[in-house]
């Protein structure tokens, strides 16, 4: 049986007093696309950076294809391709020149870079513009070349950090198709994104991070069923704070103005009775749509794209 493409064991990173990643255990199976979701500051990029050897963990271990990143860093890194969130390219150089440099870092010969470069530029649809300076490319083309640079050395594991930020729909579709084709070819992919629909469309499993911890892991369907299926929005008039306290005995509750977002532990009746017993009046009950976004919201208390906004007050922490 082949080892997991990526294994993280008790992986943690602290910067002084601040904990960026608080001990993560995660296995990514060969050939799988794993989506990594989390609000800003959740620790996704730090986790990826540790997995790629860009950041040294404070503790814990990273194994890539069964090789320890700490004990055999160069062997492990050869199996890995990183596509950073930034456009990690030399814009004054051509696509070919960029590939030549990044290929040389992986010890590839000039002939291998040329042959593999033909393939990879064809995959990302840049074969006919390969001699132009990258600065003349559109944002989408640069994103595609960014992906090509990560693929050049034929990694078994590809880490994509927000690969579609700021791209046009055409380039986004192209990247989607490329990712699917790579998975079909047997490549393992770790995919971080802010776009929920990308995760739903591409990923076999989703790992959700918040505050440096892995708080949920499963398929999209499992996460929705576990965390978004029974969500209610209950509009209250009267003493909302008292109603929230009463409701917390029967549901996971989060208050937003005069609305309680609740996931009942059991039936709806007990929850409604508890709220009404406080003297508050329920003016409307709305069933939340069972989406990954709802699951994410239930788990983290953050909207995924609600950059840096503080989480609304929660009466009870959600658990995976």
């Amino acid at each position, binding site marked *: 049986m082949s080892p997991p493409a990526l294994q993280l064991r008790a992986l943690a990173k602290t910067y002084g007093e601040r904990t960026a990643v608080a001990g993560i255990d995660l296995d990514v199976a060969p050939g799988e696309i794993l989506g990594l979701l989390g609000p800003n500051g959740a620790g996704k990029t730090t986790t990826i950076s540790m997995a790629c050897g860009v950041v040294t963990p404070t503790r814990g271990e990273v194994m890539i294809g069964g090789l320890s990143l700490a004990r055999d860093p160069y062997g492990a890194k050869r199996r890995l391709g*990183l596509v*950073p*969130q930034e456009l990690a390219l030399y814009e004054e150089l051509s696509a070919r020149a960029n590939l030549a440099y990044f290929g040389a870092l992986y010890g590839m010969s000039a002939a291998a870079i040329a042959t593999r470069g033909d393939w990879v530029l064809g995959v990302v649809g840049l074969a006919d513009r390969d001699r132009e300076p990258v600065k003349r490319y559109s944002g989408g083309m640069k994103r595609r070349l960014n992906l090509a640079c990560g693929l050049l050395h034929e990694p078994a594991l590809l880490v994509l950090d927000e690969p579609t930020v700021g791209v046009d729909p055409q380039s986004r579709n192209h990247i989607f198709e490329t990712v699917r084709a790579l998975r079909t070819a047997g490549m393992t992919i770790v995919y971080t994104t802010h776009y929920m629909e990308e995760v739903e469309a591409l990923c076999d499993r989703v790992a959700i991070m918040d505050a440096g911890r892995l708080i949920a892991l499963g398929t999209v369907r499992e996460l929705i069923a576990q965390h978004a299926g029974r969500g209610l929005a209950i509009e209250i008039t009267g003493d909302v704070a008292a109603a929230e306290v009463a409701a917390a005995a029967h549901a996971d509750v989060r208050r937003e103005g005069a609305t309680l977002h609740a996931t009942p532990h059991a039936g709806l009746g007990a929850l409604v009775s508890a709220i009404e017993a406080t003297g508050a009046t329920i003016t409307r009950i709305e069933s939340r749509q069972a989406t990954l976004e709802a699951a994410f919201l239930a788990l983290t208390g953050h909207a995924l794209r609600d950059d840096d906004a503080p989480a609304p007050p929660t009466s009870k922490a959600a658990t995976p």
Partner: protein
Amino acid sequence: MIAAAIWKDMQLLLRDRGTLISLFALPIVFIVAFGAMFSGGGTSPDVPRPIAIWHPTPSPAGEVVERALAATPGFTPQPLASADAVRAAVAAGTVDAGLVIAADVDPAHGHPVELAIDLAAPIQVRAPLTGALTAVVTRALGAPVGAELVYLEARQPPGIRKPLPDISGFQITVPGNAVLFGFYIALTVAMSFAGERRTGTWRRLLAAPVPRWKVMLATLVPYYVIGLIQLTFLFGLGASLFGMRVAGSIPALVVLSMCVVLCAVCLGLLFASLGGTEKQLGSVGSVCLLVMGLLGGCMVPRLLMPDTMRSIGHIVPHSWALDGYYDLLVREGTGFSDIAPSLGALAGFAALFALIGLRRFRFET
């Protein structure tokens, strides 16, 4: 609207340390530095310049000259034990000039006073000193009206290499500017690190299966090569277009240039280790390099500076580089041994910059 724009730009300016330094601190530094260079700064008229002197005892002519020298504002005689001691003091640079009044001194019969002075020193240094001392000696020995006698004969003391004949100004300006702008590679190095971090290529490099020391070398070595090409170009241009000549050893010139570029690249590593954006590095770094160039004598030769400023110049590698280049370009027959202090100092600066840079440098941000 205009007022709002002014207020906005004032706030931006107050947060931009580099621009603040360029606009307000740099002029002050230049005012102070140039002021010190051209107004005495350390060798004020109250501190007369010592002139080594020897004459046999008794020697009426020697005693007259010594008294005349003591009576001349700006000079003070420094009697030494022998003629050779005077020449050695000049060769060692402890005094700028010395007078040797032999027992048979007699300008009327072709035996002038010997002026021991570095004939390879810039004309701007030599000429005023020679002129003033000639006047002192001529008056002291009572030159007859209308006589065209040689009272003072300038000679190169042993231990100092002779200069090339017909030294042109380019012998000084080419190395001065080559060193000034050669050190700007430090800024390019630092901005390159910052650029790699900004664009994310740094993350890609760190994720590649290469040791971090190689990642660093891969960033530094290209600039070392570029720095060598730059100096080769500038000296080549100086030689082919401006008639600059090399009086000493060309291999020594090559090694000196290699040390200069090494020092500049290590300084770049030190700048890079301080962090900051490309813009911050650009403004603060260029100010630093300008001040270093100024103190090191790239714009005004240090030999024209007062003693204090000359000594201060030694705190920057530019001065050592220029001392070495000056010897190799101006003094005949100079080689490795003559520029050993410069090579040693530049290697020391390079090691210091590299050590601090490596200790402070953070691969991970």
